[in-house]
């Protein structure tokens, strides 16, 4: 039963969806404060390469190495996001241009490729990887075994993050403040809430989440490093935030849906099932879905109705003249 296509798809959807979930949660934090970060893909790639580098270089126990790797990946993502924050918050550059520039700067043939090649990370298996957290006996339980107990610790951490971010945004003062900053920075500023610090903090923490998402790819899903290993997950994450109406719990559902779409092609292949003439269309499904979501929601009115923060993408200037 645990081997049925549906169970396997859900279980691998959870696993494959976790990098998306981390990245989407990070993007959600930034966007809720009014900062659009299109550099997620670049931040994920830098996190992926730096996390992988850490486990290859550190000669310590697996747990310590992995914890350090996640820390380094988060820091790398945060540093990238700090550049974005400085450009768009302090210098009020275009958020779209800055985000795209960062993805190009860090992406394939960019910083992450340079680091990976220069540190000789290609074609090596990871020295430490995230494996299933619970004993294998529990994974044999029907249905919940593979889906709930067959996952690595990062999955459980991501669940905790969903709950915490959700509570933070809806039930705490700082959460209320960050929503105000994203909706109406002028109102927040008048009430003495520092628009600049809230935006910096959430953009940088958001970048750290993207970095962790990247490391999840290289340390848990495909434990190796190749150029451009995230395969556009950052872009899917950006679409996911919209798809999820800027709500963390829906990010989780969406991430697992996209994760399952990603898992669909290899699973069908493994089972010798062919749907249609080529496997190409099943493997392109996540990207096609991403494009569709972005097309549907790209009009201004649709975004407002879906619940986009009103000040998303708009720099805040206090003086009116």
């Amino acid at each position, binding site marked *: 039963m645990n081997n049925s296509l549906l169970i396997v798809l859900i279980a691998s959807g959870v696993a494959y969806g976790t990098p998306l979930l981390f990245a989407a949660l990070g993007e959600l934090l930034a966007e809720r404060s009014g900062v659009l970060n299109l550099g997620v893909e670049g931040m994920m790639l830098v996190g992926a390469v730096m996390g992988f580098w850490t486990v290859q270089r550190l000669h310590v126990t697996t747990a310590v190495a992995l914890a350090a790797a996640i820390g380094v990946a988060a820091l790398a993502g945060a540093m990238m996001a700090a550049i974005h924050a400085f450009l768009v918050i302090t210098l009020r550059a275009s958020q779209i241009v800055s985000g795209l520039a960062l993805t190009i700067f860090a992406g394939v043939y960019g910083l992450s490729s340079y680091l990976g090649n220069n540190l000789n990370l290609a074609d090596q298996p990871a020295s430490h990887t995230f494996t299933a957290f619970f004993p294998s006996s529990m994974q044999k339980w029907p249905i919940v075994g593979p889906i709930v107990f067959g996952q690595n610790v990062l999955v459980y951490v991501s669940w905790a993050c969903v709950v915490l971010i959700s509570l933070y945004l*809806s039930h705490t*003062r700082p959460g209320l403040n960050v929503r105000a900053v994203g*909706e109406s920075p002028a*109102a927040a500023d008048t009430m003495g809430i520092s628009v600049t610090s809230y935006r910096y903090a959430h953009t940088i923490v958001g970048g750290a989440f993207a970095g962790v998402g990247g490391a999840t790819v290289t340390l848990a899903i495909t434990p190796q490093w190749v150029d451009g290993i995230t395969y556009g997950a950052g872009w899917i994450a950006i679409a996911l935030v919209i798809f999820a109406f800027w709500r963390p719990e829906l990010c989780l559902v969406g991430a697992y849906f996209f994760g399952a779409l990603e898992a669909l092609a290899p699973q069908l292949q493994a089972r010798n099932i062919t749907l249609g003439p080529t496997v190409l269309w099943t493997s392109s499904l996540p990207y096609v879905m991403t494009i569709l979501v972005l097309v549907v929601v790209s009009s201004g009115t649709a975004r407002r109705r879906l619940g986009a923060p*009103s000040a998303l993408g708009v720099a805040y200037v206090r003086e009116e003249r």
Partner: protein
Amino acid sequence: MAAEIAVSMRGITKRFPGVVANDNVDFEAAVGEVHALLGENGAGKTTLSHVLTGLYRPDEGRISLYGERVAFASPREAIDAGVCMVHQHFRLVDRFTVAENLMLGDRSGAGRSFRIDSTAVESQVRELGERYRLPVDPTARIWQLSVGEQQRVEILNALYQNARVLILDEPTSVLTPDEADTLFETLRLMAGEGRTVIFISHKLHEVKAVSDRVTVLRAGQVVATVTTADATQQSLAALMVGHDLETERRSRGGEQVGAEVLKVEDVWADGDRGAPALKGVSLTIRAGEVVAVAGVAGNGQRDLAEAIAGLRPCTKGTIRVGGKLLAHADPRDAFDAGVRYVPEDRLGTGVAPNLSIAMNLQLRSFRRTSFGPLLRLGRMRANAEEAIRRFEIKTSGPQMQTAQLSGGNLQKVVIAREFSGEMAVLVAASPTRGLDVAAVETVHSYLLDAAESGTAVLLLSEDLDEIQALNDRIVVMYEGRLSDVVNRESIEEIGLRMAGGAP
């Protein structure tokens, strides 16, 4: 009453690039008074209040509160000292509830806890609302509220923050006459409790109705501070503009009203939010007639103007100009049929702000003047120079960027462009909003000129003075429907209709 001084501003000077917005201004308001700050647009009223509330820092001068010297670096510091402001554009978070908005600024009350608990704040809002006659549902979200209710939220916010000094910037511009009267009662109540209310306005009758004293600003300087009881509307007006206002209006009604030009029949259209904004509007205007549509903003006036100008698709109904049916949502067809449109949002919709004046003046007619795909720049320039002369646009030249013009001159550019060619119908939406008295007079005279030359003029405005001054016929718009006003109803009756009451 030798009252204690609440606010004292001495020698305040605030400069912006190219302008001195406040020039050595002295201002004083006592405890328990309603003090009006009167002046034309651009006289420096708002700047002065922003200096007081910490949004701007003065270049020179000193501010004291209750005898103590203060220097606010931010609005927050001002609020902490008890100085709150209700801005013209409300500083509210649309998607939050009333209570959540109040909690945002709460540093000492029930809403300051780390965990959000809105029930305590909600009950306090109800209590304050009852006491000050500001009823608002604390659990309602701001976007669900009318503009008048949103203003109440702003005032409640100030009360919730224990404001001792409350500044209101043109608070009645969004209210019906009835709502304005209620607001005045609230303000009197607050002053009676020993708070200080600073009331910014350029409307004389309001200043007369609500204030104890008036400080008049002109061109950034204080002209006089007078006790309201000793002043008349005429004397205040003279102080405000620096000369006696022309009291005589151009007489209306002598013109010949001609054939039906604009005929709108049972028009329905959806608003920006997707809900029907026009619900079966029918309207006929004859040549040489000025029909004024009164109403509070957001009742479909803009949608009607846009429907006639071909900018908003009608879901039902027809619009005819001179008997010719206008094509569906086709602004060019409307223009060719003689519809001219002076939009409410003159900077965003009326012009392309980053283009030159010459370019903007040609936006409607470049197809006729250009040589194939090539613009004839020389001819455009000559046309622009002529328009600048004819409409007395104050500018450094036709190549000046349009966004740099002042409101009145910007409106003249729009009018100069729209008045070209055969003008059958003129749709003017709030054409004088935010303009100073002199510019208002000019715009009004252009509208009347248009009517005299046989154009059917549709004026949409919230300003009842303007409507009274210009109309041949008044209709009131409320929630997407028009109702005809029986000849010469009083201002109060029109106001009642604007608020949805049937007289």
